[in-house]
């Protein structure tokens, strides 16, 4: 029986045949490749939603910070120091140490003394806070961060773990790894072993070792078009399939590194089903050692897709969650929590 990776060629045929004159007109107006808009209509089901999504991608995201309690035990101290510099901050309701910047201060956020002292991590959108919160590691966990650089989620998990337990942070990219190492040091993180290697080799080095794992997979970034407008035109469907294949390999290796009963959080900053539901579906289909479980987040996120261009997806995939800029005020994002059996 052909798998979900193979089904992507059927999907591509159906995408092409769904490109109507309206799709082409909207794509041209907003500056997108037509096939992308055809997919958004399939995912969201209504033109009203598609236009809201495209308009949301035109808006800037507010910057946000996560105060680092590993360096400043009293988060209020960092907030007060930033207020003195002219910043106005509002708390993020679902992440107790994070704040949205509603008014900038006199010094850029990446150049304050508080930043250099490791007082906070700087985000370009709130959705990056979701994966660590969803995985919820504690000080008794052994965590794999399988695509760790530049370290926002690694340092976030270290903070949630109170600086105890273990995180093995793996990434292959040399320049991004420098940023990871620098962020770990700046933020005073001491429960991380950082390894520059291909994450697909992690099971060979560690075997089944980890109680939790995060794979915030490298992706095409189809959820962060606000941050990089070139993404409207730079990704071909072949690029998506290539990304999907790599993501499947990374997710399989991540699952193989986790002990039975352990959890794997798969996420991307993309709303492309090819990188999201199809990746999870391919791994579910080829392994009976893993299942999708509900994500313990008290946020009204959208369920994973049950079907895409006539290709039915496994039931469990609907337990994954989608984040849309026009509905949630964040970057487009995908989250899926898997339990290893």
């Amino acid at each position: 029986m052909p798998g979900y990776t193979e089904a992507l060629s059927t999907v591509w045929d159906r995408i092409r045949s769904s490109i109507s004159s309206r799709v082409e007109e909207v794509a041209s107006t907003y500056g997108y490749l037509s096939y992308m808009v055809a997919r958004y209509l399939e995912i969201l089901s209504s033109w009203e939603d598609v236009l809201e999504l495209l308009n949301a991608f035109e808006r800037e995201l507010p910057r946000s910070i996560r105060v680092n309690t590993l360096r400043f035990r009293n988060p209020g101290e960092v907030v007060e120091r930033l207020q003195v510099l002219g910043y106005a901050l509002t708390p993020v309701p679902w992440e107790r140490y994070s704040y949205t910047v509603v008014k900038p201060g006199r010094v850029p956020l990446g150049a304050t003394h508080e930043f250099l002292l490791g007082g906070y991590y700087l985000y370009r959108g709130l959705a990056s806070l979701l994966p660590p919160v969803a995985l919820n590691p504690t000080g008794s966990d052994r965590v794999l961060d399988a695509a760790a650089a530049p370290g926002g989620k690694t340092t976030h998990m270290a903070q949630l773990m109170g600086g105890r337990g273990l995180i093995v942070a793996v990434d292959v990219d040399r320049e991004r790894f420098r940023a990871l190492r620098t962020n770990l040091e700046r933020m005073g993180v001491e429960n991380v072993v950082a390894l520059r290697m291909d994450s697909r080799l992690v099971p060979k080095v560690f075997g089944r070792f980890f109680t939790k794992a995060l794979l915030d997979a490298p992706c095409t970034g189809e959820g962060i078009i606000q941050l990089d407008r070139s993404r409207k035109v730079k990704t071909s469907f072949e690029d998506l399939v290539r990304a999907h294949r790599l993501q499947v390999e990374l997710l399989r290796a991540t699952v193989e590194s986790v002990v039975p009963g352990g959890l794997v959080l798969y996420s991307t900053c993309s709303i492309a089903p090819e990188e999201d539901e199809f990746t999870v579906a391919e791994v579910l289909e080829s392994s009976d050692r893993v299942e999708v479980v509900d994500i313990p987040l008290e946020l009204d996120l959208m369920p994973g897709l049950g079907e895409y261009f006539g290709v039915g997806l496994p039931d469990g995939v609907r337990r994954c969650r989608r984040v849309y800029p026009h509905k949630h005020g964040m970057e487009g994002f995908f989250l899926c929590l898997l339990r290893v059996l």
Partner: protein
Amino acid sequence: MPPKGTVRCRVGGGELGEEVARLFGAGALRALAGYVPMYCWSSFTEVYLLREELLEAVDRVLSSGRVPYSAGLYAGRLRRSRPRFIPSHLLVERVYEALGRYVRALEASEQGVRVVLYGRDILRLSTLRCFEPIEKGEVVSVVGTDGRVYALGLSEVDSCSELERLRAEDVVARVIFDLGWYLRGGTVARERKYRV
């Protein structure tokens, strides 16, 4: 940053303790309690402090023929020439916490801290207080009035009393690392970490 070339690492050994005791006194060893040092060397040696929870993972990495890029708390750099040991600002803060006082430190004014974070040296003008022992050519920390360590330098004086005869614009310590490095050189640009 791991030293260039073939890097080797080992877990355990007394060199770090010896250097910490030499610089800050035996009481400073309390800052190392609960940790095992890991040394990674090539042309110089980087030292990390590992909690017990990290040891098994590090052992698996080393057994596979790989070395960690970093692990645990970065403690500093051991060198063949003077200064023999450059502690990280994180370690220095922990030492001060363990001792309950500053040693080998210069307390800088707000303006002084601002200038130091641009990589400039610490001048007499900006030095509010000095904490012994201070030795010429040896590591000294630059602390702000908020108690945080903002930079590490090499002292230009042999004791705090020498500050009295310096002019306002005289250099008290030549800065070899400041937190501004995280902005200037810690990510993409390749500014050397220590200017020594």
